């Protein structure tokens, strides 16, 4: 009998505390920070958000643009050229992903904690991967257009760097998460770091590595589509010139084809992912 009484007393005590703690005193510094954040939000909305009038004025223009876009261009000569450009886009994405993944593997190994053969050097490779990741792909594309010239080569190199930024990190995490115990066993047998990588770490991390690669491929296809906007090859180039020359029928055909390609590739990678499971 005493247990419920004790617990109800405890409950009362808890409620009492809650009443006191419901209105916490805000320290002056926190208050100042809140006011500052509020001011920043209001100022930002005022500067960059669309005003209701602008939205209102924009609606007829959207319909106007759609009117000029439809129907999409179906001229066979144009469709053939577009087809080649789409193929080039896919080539950029696939070649870039494959090279990126191949380069990511050693970089991930060197940067993975405990698994890396470099006892203290791993932060160097982690930093390199972070650098690749934090600079946006369009900026890399601009850099490569300047260094290797306009066209698909610059696009492929952009995808390579972008893929290393993505896979380098997630490969390293997958390696770090791989099963510890067999690694200790191999260490005890006298295996080298490289043997441990090949015999335990890679087989164990393989499903995760394949998954990451498929995501990287999806990502590469999406970004290879826009790389042409800055002159790095692919369908984006065609899209940009269509907009520049006010050829909106062509633009809509290109946008539709991009949509279909991305959808198909996502469907394929989804199927492959299910296979890996």
């Amino acid at each position, binding site marked *: 009998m005493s247990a419920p009484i004790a617990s109800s007393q405890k409950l009362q005590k808890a409620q009492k505390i809650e009443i006191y703690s419901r209105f916490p005193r805000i320290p002056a510094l926190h208050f100042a920070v809140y006011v500052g954040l509020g001011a920043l939000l209001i100022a930002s909305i005022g500067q960059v958000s669309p005003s209701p009038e602008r939205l209102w004025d924009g609606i007829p223009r959207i319909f106007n643009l759609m009117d000029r876009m439809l129907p999409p261009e179906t001229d066979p000569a144009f469709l053939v050229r577009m087809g080649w450009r789409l193929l080039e886009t896919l080539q950029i994405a696939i070649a870039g992903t494959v090279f990126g993944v191949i380069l990511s593997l050693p970089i991930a190994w060197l940067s993975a904690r405990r698994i890396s053969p470099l006892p203290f050097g791993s932060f160097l490779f982690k930093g390199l991967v972070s650098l690749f990741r934090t600079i946006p792909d369009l900026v890399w594309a601009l850099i490569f257009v300047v260094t290797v010239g306009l066209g698909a080569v610059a696009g492929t190199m952009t995808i390579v760097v972008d893929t290393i930024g993505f896979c380098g990190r997630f490969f390293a995490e997958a390696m770090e998460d791989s*099963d510890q*115990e*067999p690694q*200790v*066993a*191999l*260490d*005890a*047998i*006298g*295996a*080298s770091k*490289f*043997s441990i990588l*090949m*015999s*335990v770490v890679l*087989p*164990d991390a*393989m499903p995760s590595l394949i998954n990451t690669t498929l995501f990287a491929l999806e990502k590469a296809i999406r970004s290879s589509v826009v790389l042409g906007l800055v002159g790095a090859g692919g369908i984006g180039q065609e899209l940009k010139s269509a907009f520049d020359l006010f050829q909106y029928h062509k633009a809509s055909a290109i946008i539709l084809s991009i949509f279909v390609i991305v959808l198909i590739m996502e469907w394929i990678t989804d199927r492959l992912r299910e296979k890996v499971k």
Partner: protein
Amino acid sequence: MLQISKIRKTFGELHAVNNVTLNIPSGQMVGVIGRSGAGKSTLLRLINRLADPTSGTISFDGTNVTELKGRDLRLWRASCAMIFQQFNLIERMDVLSNVLVGRIAHHDFVSSMLRQYTDEERALAIRALDRVGMVQQALQRAGTLSGGQQQRVAIAKALVQNPKILLADEPIASLDPANATRVMDSLRTINQNDGITVLVNLHTLDTARKYCDRIIAMRAGEVRFNGAAHELSNDLVRDIYGEAGLETGIDESVTSTSIEEASSSNDNQQIA
């Protein structure tokens, strides 16, 4: 002959192994007993050099093990096989590949990359699996086996290392009595037929008494007893396990994991 002299391993303030000196002649089967945290595991890890000693030396047949580096260290580790409580197999790989991993220290960069093994090594692996009665499961994934089967695969892996010493760290602590018996029988036959020195950490006193030529008892990082099994008296046991609260002392059958029936009914499974 394994000579351990004044070995010490400290983790911060803790003396995991404190001034241990032991001489273990080749071919002995030695049971190391003691409470959890007494330093048994650390002692084995020091011998294999998975852990480096704070001070002291370990030497084997005149070679100073504590000073080995690089390739020599890896070859020492290869000749000093280790078996773990959790088996530590590569669960996604098949049994045969797991056993072949035991040869890895003898392979160079390229062949370990391609995981290529010679026909002799494959034959060696099959013979080792045969000795522990696991040939039929050779192509099964290691992760699908029971704990006892996995530990036998681990023993086969140790065998293909051609070890001079076998270190077993609580090899039967996660196994049921029948499998525990089978694993201990395997270790003893390897010790007797191949003349390999076996050091085995055990939680169960009666197992140590039954299987080992010699018992080393540790407490708080120090060796409290070092002698034949029959010399280990109840007073000493009480000292080692330090059961202040237990009035009746330690009943060995309570902690026992062995069953007599298992060893006789599995005679056909036993190691040749």
